[in-house]
């Protein structure tokens, strides 16, 4: 039996973001929201662990009230319960992670915490490791293959320049990469059944966090301008390929 928590974040659908050309700021109003993709990989992995070992999956979100609707999607996929903790004004990674770790402590008897390696909007990769820090639990980051057994977990991890295999005893925090699995789609009956699964709403003060100051300063947020260079190589094919390769190498795009 595994008591698993999956931390999932509601984000704006980054594919739909436009950048205001005069201010260079991303326009976030009216953009559809979704659960950050890699968090769905984390949930999928949790479901597979539960299918193998039994147990319970709770998804925990720090976010606005409308995140409840997105939590339902995760309940439809296979989580058993949801917890929504309101995101305080100006909350940073420190506050969000600490809120989650307090939530995990409040839930109690947790064996595993699964997070995406990073959220698709900010992609800082901070939340998982910070939670592990607050809880003082082992952390297995960037896992692309996970083998869980009662009381311990082994993860194959992508460290960029090498792969490592790490084993930890439970409780532990895992962050997963996109490659780990293909998140399942919920069936119609699972979608209809999701309405009956509970979503608990906890308050910041009940977690003792109403006076916690932020520590990470957000200085500015700007869109990256993308412009085509519009260079066309028209010569005979062999020549053109050579020129293209040379140009790409000069731009540092050929590794």
């Amino acid at each position: 039996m595994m008591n698993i928590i999956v931390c999932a974040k509601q984000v704006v659908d980054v594919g739909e973001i436009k950048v205001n050309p005069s201010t260079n700021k991303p326009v976030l109003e009216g953009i559809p929201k979704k659960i950050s993709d890699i968090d769905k990989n984390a949930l999928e992995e949790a479901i597979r662990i539960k299918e193998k070992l039994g147990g319970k999956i709770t998804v925990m979100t720090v976010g606005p009230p409308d995140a409840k609707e997105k939590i339902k999607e995760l309940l439809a996929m296979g989580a058993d319960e949801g917890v929504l903790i309101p995101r305080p004004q100006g909350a940073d990674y420190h506050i969000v992670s600490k809120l989650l770790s307090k939530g995990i402590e409040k839930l109690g008897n947790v064996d595993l915490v699964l997070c995406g390696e990073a959220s698709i909007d900010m992609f800082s990769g901070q939340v998982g490791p910070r939670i592990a820090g607050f809880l003082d639990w082992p952390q297995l980051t960037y896992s692309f293959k996970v083998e869980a057994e009662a009381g311990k977990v082994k993860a194959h991890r992508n460290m960029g320049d090498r792969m490592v295999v790490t084993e930890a005893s439970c409780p532990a925090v895992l962050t997963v990469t996109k490659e780990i699995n293909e998140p399942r789609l919920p069936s119609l009956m699972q979608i209809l059944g999701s309405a009956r699964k509970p979503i608990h709403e906890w308050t910041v003060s009940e977690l003792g966090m109403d006076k916690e100051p932020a520590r990470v300063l957000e200085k500015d947020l700007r869109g990256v301008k993308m412009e085509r260079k519009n260079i066309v190589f028209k010569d005979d094919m062999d020549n053109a390929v050579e020129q293209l390769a040379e140009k790409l190498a000069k731009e540092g795009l050929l590794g």
Partner: protein
Amino acid sequence: MDFSLTPEQNMIRDMVREFALKEIRPIAADTDREGKFPWETIRKMGALGLMGMTVPSEYGGSKIDVLSYTLALEEIGKVCGSTGLTMEAHNSLGVGHIFERGSEEQRRKYLPRLLTGEGLAAWALTEPNAGSDAASLQTTAVLEGDEWVLNGSKQFITNGSIADIITVMAKTDKTKGAKGISAFIVPKGTPGLVYGGEEDKMGLRGSVTSQLAFQDCRVPKENMLDEPGMGFIGAMQILDRGRTAIGALAVGLAQGALEECLDYAKQRVQFGRPISKHQAIQWKLTDMATEIEAARLLVHRAAFLEDRGVPFSKEASMAKLYASEIAVKAAVEAVQVHGGYGFTKEYPVERLFRDVKLYTIGEGTSEVQRMVIAKHLGL
């Protein structure tokens, strides 16, 4: 009045959309070109509940509200008209008739396999000499001892030759016209059920459309659905519901055509700018988008009425008529916007153009829809 979808309806639409984009869109062109029936896709759809949408869970189905059903059909239709028709004929017609009109025993016996995508259902009303005037059908069923003996032929039967179970309308009393028609369950493999070949169609080539013949085809007495003489009335009820569904598929195809155009028009440069910057193209796309929105609202309203349990026959006919007509128009314009490329198999609009025409014909032609609407107007 509230035009917003419930969270569950949103989730259902998103789920089907994701499935359609991942699993159907990549194979839609091949399914059409090779006329290959996508069994694997149908099985996956079954696992998600998409082949049991008209039957409650106590029979193994995944019954959902009609509006959600239309949302799902729109998403499938958007990427593949063939798969859309297969799904619709199965859910609305074949399975629908057995569930709505079948006895408890018939439901328990025939439905389970059909609801998981393992087996398909077909529904046979049309005959070579009885299309719009379906009540003039000539297939007969005569009771001999404990068996009904069927003779006659059926034309244009979706899923016909690949179905596990076919619901067949046949005359049991020649003196009574429409009230002399009864419905029968004919399983695959029944002796005397003969497959007469497949139609070589202009479009929807990834869906199966079969000719069927019944040559002293014997089914047990208990295979009659409903009461004797109720076959045509049942069929009309099933068609009423099917119309909303066909409307939803047509909206899907039209939306698919529009989205192809929006992508293409922004990329194709002529006279120094993307053709999307030419007003002539903009107006085509604005009109397409407006008509699609109107058609979708008609479909949703018919579904809404059915979900409320109030009469919806007029609205369903209007939805089917309008949605299918504007969808044909949208597909014609979509080819036009693509210029010469739209005339080739390189772009999906060529397939859409061929697929969409069926929707003004199947389950009651546009003319038949107008006859239904005229009756509702007291004409």
